C-alpha cells in the first residue's frame, strides 16, 4: 500500500493502480475538507443561522 511495504515495487502496475487509489482518496479527502472548512467559515460569517 505504501512504498515502504516490502511488496511494493516501482513498476507500472503499482504506479497506475496505487496512483488511482491515492488519487481517488485525495479527491474525496480534499473535497470533504473543503466542504467542512467552507461550512465553518460560512457559519462564522453568520450564514444559515436563523434560530441563534
Amino acid at each position, binding site marked *: *500500500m505504501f512504498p515502504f511495504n516490502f511488496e511494493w515495487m516501482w513498476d507500472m*502496475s503499482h504506479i497506475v493502480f496505487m496512483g488511482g487509489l491515492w488519487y481517488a482518496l485525495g479527491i474525496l479527502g480534499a473535497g470533504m475538507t473543503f466542504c467542512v472548512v*467552507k461550512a465553518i467559515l460560512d*457559519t462564522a460569517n453568520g450564514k444559515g443561522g436563523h434560530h441563534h
Partner: protein
Amino acid sequence: MDSALIPKGVKRCPIWQFALGLGVVGAVLLWGVYAMILCWFKGLNQTNMNDYYGFALWIWADLAVIALGGGAFFTGLLKYVIGKDELKNIINYAVLIGFICYSSALLILAIDVGQPLRSWFIFWHANVHSMLTEVAFCLSCYFCVLTIEYIPLILENRQLDKVPFVHNLSHTMHEYMAVFAATGAFLSFFHQGSLGGVAGVLFGRPFAYREHLFIWPWTFFLFTWSAAAYGPCFTLLVTRITEKITRKQLVKDTTIQLLAKIAGWMMFTYIIAKIIDTVYWATTTAPSLGFTLKDFYSNNPVYGYWILFAEIVLCGVVPALMLITPKIRSNRLLLTLATILAVIGVSLNRWVMVLQVMAVPVMSFDIWAMYYPSWQEVATTILPVAYGIILIMISYRYLPIFPQEAELNPLEPEADMAAAAGTEETTEEVPEPGLTPAEA
C-alpha cells in the same frame, strides 16, 4: 411524539405502527446478528461451504447487492455528470439504496473472510495484480462516496438542520456533489468491473474464463454494464414497493419513465453484448481449453441449459424489450414486472458467475459439487435485507427523501394542523426551498 423530527409537509404513520414494524424487522435482524456472531466466534465451519465451494451464498449476495446498488452510481452519473436533471427526484432514494447495498456488501465480506481481524491486509499487503484487490479498493472508496452523498440527506433532518454549521455543511456538500458523484462513478466503473474480473480471470476455470481486453477480461465490462442497466431497475422496483407500502405516489411518472427508458436501452445493449460473449465463449474460448458447452450444463442435478435461457432470454431480452417499448413501460404493472425480471436476471447472472463456477468439475475425473447453504448463511444473508428495510423506514420517516412527496400528496388541513400542533417549536420555521437536495 416524534413529530418534531418528521419532515415538514408530509404525513407519517403513528409511532406505534412504526415501532411495531421496526420490532418485526428488528427480530429478523437479531436472528441474523446471532448467526453473524456464531460465524465470527466459531468460525466458518458454521457454513456449508467447503473446499470446492470457497465462494458460496455470501459472495453471490455480495455481487448481487452491488449490482443492484448500481442504481446509485449510474443515476448519479446521469444526473450530476450527464445532466439529466429530472432524476433529482429519485437520486436521494437511489443513493440510500446504494448506501444500504454497499454497506451490506462490506458487512457480508467481513463475515465471509476466515480471518476478519486481518482483513486490512488486503490494503496493507495489496497484490495489485489481483482483481479482488481492485474490488476492495474501489468498493471501500466508493462506499466513502456513498456516505458523503448520504450525509447531507441526514443533515437535512428538521432538527439537525437548525444547527447553522450543519446547515452550511449540507449546503456546501450539495453544491459540490458533482465532484463526489463523478469520482463515485469512476470508482464504481472499476469495482463493478473488477467484480466481473474476479470470475473472468480464472484461467483455471474454463467456465468462468474470458478473453481479455488490455488487462481486463470481458466480464469486467459486462459487469459494469449490467450494473448500470439493472441497478436502476432495482431502484425503480424498491420505489414501487415503497409506494405500495406507504400507499402514496412518491415520485412522478416522468422521472420513473425516464429512468426506466434509460435502463431499458442499457439492458438492451448489454444483453446483445452478453449474447455475443456467450456465443464466443461457447464456440471458441471453452473449446480452446478442452471443454464443450455440454460439459458445463450436463451430468448434474441443477445446472442445465435452462439457466442460460432464464438469464439471457427470460430475464434479459424480455425485460429489455419491455422497457424500451413506451407502451409497455408506461403501464405500471408491466413496468413493475419488467423490473422484477431484470432484478432476477442480474441476480441469476451473479449466481452463475459464482456458484456454477464452483460447481463445474475441471479435472476430467472430478465431480460436480452441489451445495446448499446452512441456516447461518441464510440468516446472515437476510440480515442486510432487514437492516436495509430498517434504514429505509427510518430515513423515509425522518428525512426528506422524496422531494415530490409533499406536492404529490397534499396534506388535508386537519392533519396538517394536527401535525403542526404537535411541534410548537417548529411552527415558526420557514422551510427553505433551497435546501431540498433536488434544487441544491
